[in-house]
């Protein structure tokens, strides 16, 4: 060991940064009009920066401040954050202040981002899943400076993040314990917090923002927009998948297809005698469309990644179901809920834009780098799993065959209508993800769910039990067999498909005893947002854009 070796360079760097910022703060408090100066004081060229945000809450005030910093001082940044979804996240790239990005999801900015990548103005390290990116915060992508959002701070700098705690604990823990700087925008500073979600000594600065941080009501699906086809695929899912495997622990995607399933639990599933036998334990945000199933006694427990706008009072009034603090409000945690979805759930079901002949699925389309969010964590077999359940064991017996070592398998289902809007086929020979990977020079095509993990496909044509296929050829025909009138579906070998149907690998609605003509919206436990409010006993307070009464 060299005597001259410095072991505390990070701490020294932190001290220098805090020294430069000292004049801007009173205690930990920095006023809003000083925040650009604060960022310029604490950020150094080449820093890894996390601007907190995901598909729900956003540190939007701090993001706006970032694009007002001097590009000569705040430059060569490496963004390491869940989403690039605010215009400012991409503005700061266009301003030339960012050299590299590692992220999970870009939603509304996906087109702009694709153009920047294709013109060589930005390098993408990788598009991660949420859990994967959080994991790298603790290995090789630890932020030097984290800009986070909280509902309240007290005068010591403790934070209350409340129902929308989301990513904050993961980001702050990684940053604070590796000598980084944590800046929190808060909606208000109070004397006493309802509870402490982040302790003050992990937080360096609190900034009262002029407007409350933005939260996207991403998980609110208006039942009025659910189609009869989605009712049909929900019936197929409940009978052909949930009842068949006895699925009790699960996660749902955010689409209308899965909202339809939630709304059929108190009606169709109850008529089938499935209450208490399926869908009791969830890793799920507080979906408003789950209210009728909760009220009907279907649901025993829900842990959430984040909250949902308008659901706060309802959730707080159901502490047996949700995770509620001593203060009476929910605590969410994206990292823990993602881990729960991966390891503790037997089923993931969601929708996608494209499925190929192998069963790889992707939401990437030409010219858009959208990313994944958390779906791949839930929609993947957890190979480290070591606890059994009936659903997991049954899937394992079907998927792995007669191997000597007993082992289960996660059920991973994609539910799609064979054609999307504008007659775009959901089944394709080749995913657009390949073109995107080529155009952007990515190492991997952005595949959301890999073929090897996908066990089921559900369409209006029926359910394909891919997990029961014995060869790649069978698997391809099983996929073609539920692909309807898409070119992939029309290209099926009719005899092979009938053979798969005889063996129960493909099941049509009639094979499950489902008459598609009975798949009407009358089966939905709520047919509009107002019905959801009624079902909640008036506790659900939907955002204005979902109110039409």
């Amino acid at each position, binding site marked *: 060991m060299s005597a001259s070796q410095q072991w505390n360079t990070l701490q020294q760097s932190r001290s220098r940064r805090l020294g430069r910022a000292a004049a801007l703060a009173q205690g930990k408090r920095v006023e809003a009009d000083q925040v650009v100066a604060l960022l310029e004081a604490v950020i150094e060229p080449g820093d890894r920066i996390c601007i907190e945000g995901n598909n729900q809450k956003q540190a939007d005030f701090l993001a706006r401040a970032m694009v007002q910093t001097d590009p000569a001082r705040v430059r060569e940044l490496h963004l390491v954050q869940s989403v690039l979804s605010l215009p400012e996240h991409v503005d700061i790239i266009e301003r030339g202040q960012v050299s590299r990005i590692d992220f999970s999801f870009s939603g509304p900015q996906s087109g702009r981002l694709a153009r920047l990548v294709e013109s060589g103005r930005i390098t993408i390290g990788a598009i991660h899943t949420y859990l994967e990116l959080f994991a790298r915060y603790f290995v090789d992508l630890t932020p030097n400076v984290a800009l986070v959002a909280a509902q309240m701070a007290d005068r010591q700098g403790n934070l209350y993040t409340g129902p929308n705690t989301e990513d904050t604990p993961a980001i702050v823990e990684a940053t604070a314990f590796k000598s980084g700087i944590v800046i929190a925008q808060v909606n208000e500073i109070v004397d006493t917090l309802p509870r402490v979600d982040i302790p003050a000594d992990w937080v360096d600065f609190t900034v009262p923002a002029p407007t409350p941080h933005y939260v996207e009501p991403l998980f609110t699906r208006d039942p009025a927009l659910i*189609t*009869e*086809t989605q009712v*049909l695929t929900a019936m197929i899912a409940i009978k052909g998948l949930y009842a068949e495997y006895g699925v009790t622990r699960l996660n749902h995607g955010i689409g209308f297809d899965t909202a339809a399933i939630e709304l059929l639990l108190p009606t169709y599933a109850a008529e089938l005698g499935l209450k208490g036998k399926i869908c009791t334990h969830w890793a799920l945000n507080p979906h408003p469309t789950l209210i009728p199933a909760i009220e009907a006694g279907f649901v025993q427990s829900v842990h959430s990644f984040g909250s949902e706008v308008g659901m706060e009072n309802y959730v707080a009034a159901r502490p047996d179901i949700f995770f509620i603090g001593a203060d009476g409000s929910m605590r969410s945690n994206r990292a823990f809920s993602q881990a729960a979805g991966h390891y503790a759930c037997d089923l993931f079901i969601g929708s996608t834009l494209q499925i190929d002949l192998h069963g790889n699925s992707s939401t990437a389309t030409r010219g858009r780098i959208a990313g994944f969010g958390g779906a791949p964590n839930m929609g993947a077999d957890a190979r480290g799993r070591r606890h059994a359940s009936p659903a997991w064991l049954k899937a394992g017996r079907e998927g792995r065959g007669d191997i000597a070592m007993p082992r289960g398998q996660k059920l991973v289902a994609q539910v799609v*209508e*064979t*054609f999307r*809007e*504008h*007659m775009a086929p959901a089944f394709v020979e080749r995913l657009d993800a390949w073109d995107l990977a080529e155009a952007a020079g990515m190492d991997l095509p952005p595949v959301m769910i890999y073929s090897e993990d996908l066990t089921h496909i559900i*369409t*209006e*044509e029926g359910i394909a039990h891919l997990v029961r296929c014995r060869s790649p050829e069978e698997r391809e025909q099983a996929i073609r067999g539920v692909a*309807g*009138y898409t070119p992939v579906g*029309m290209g099926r070998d009719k005899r092979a498909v009938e053979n798969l149907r005889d063996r129960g690998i493909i099941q049509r609605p009639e094979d499950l005893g489902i008459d*598609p*003509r009975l*798949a009407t919206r009358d089966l939905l436990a709520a047919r509009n947002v107002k019905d959801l409010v009624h079902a909640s006993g008036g506790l659900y307070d939907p955002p204005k854009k979902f109110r039409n009464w």
Partner: protein
Amino acid sequence: MERFEITLDARPAGAARRSALCGVVASGNLEVLVELGQDPAACTVEVSTSADGFRDIWEAVLADFVERHPAGGLRISINDAGATPAVVSLRLAQAFEDSTGGAA
């Protein structure tokens, strides 16, 4: 906008039939009108669709329809406002059921 007529060989519809209108035009929806036709061994379908270039898919959907249902002797008019094949098949089945009083 595209308009075409397809005539398919079909098993004769046996039961008493009445004209029926099923489905309403809305976004992603369509109108189906079932009437009595001339030839008891054929089903004639007139398609008027807002989406051009999908005639081969219409032919496949309609071929499956007459295979599943004894639609001979029926004349069907479809007014499509961009419905997917799933919706077309469902509405056809519903319209057929209405027109035959439930006889498959």
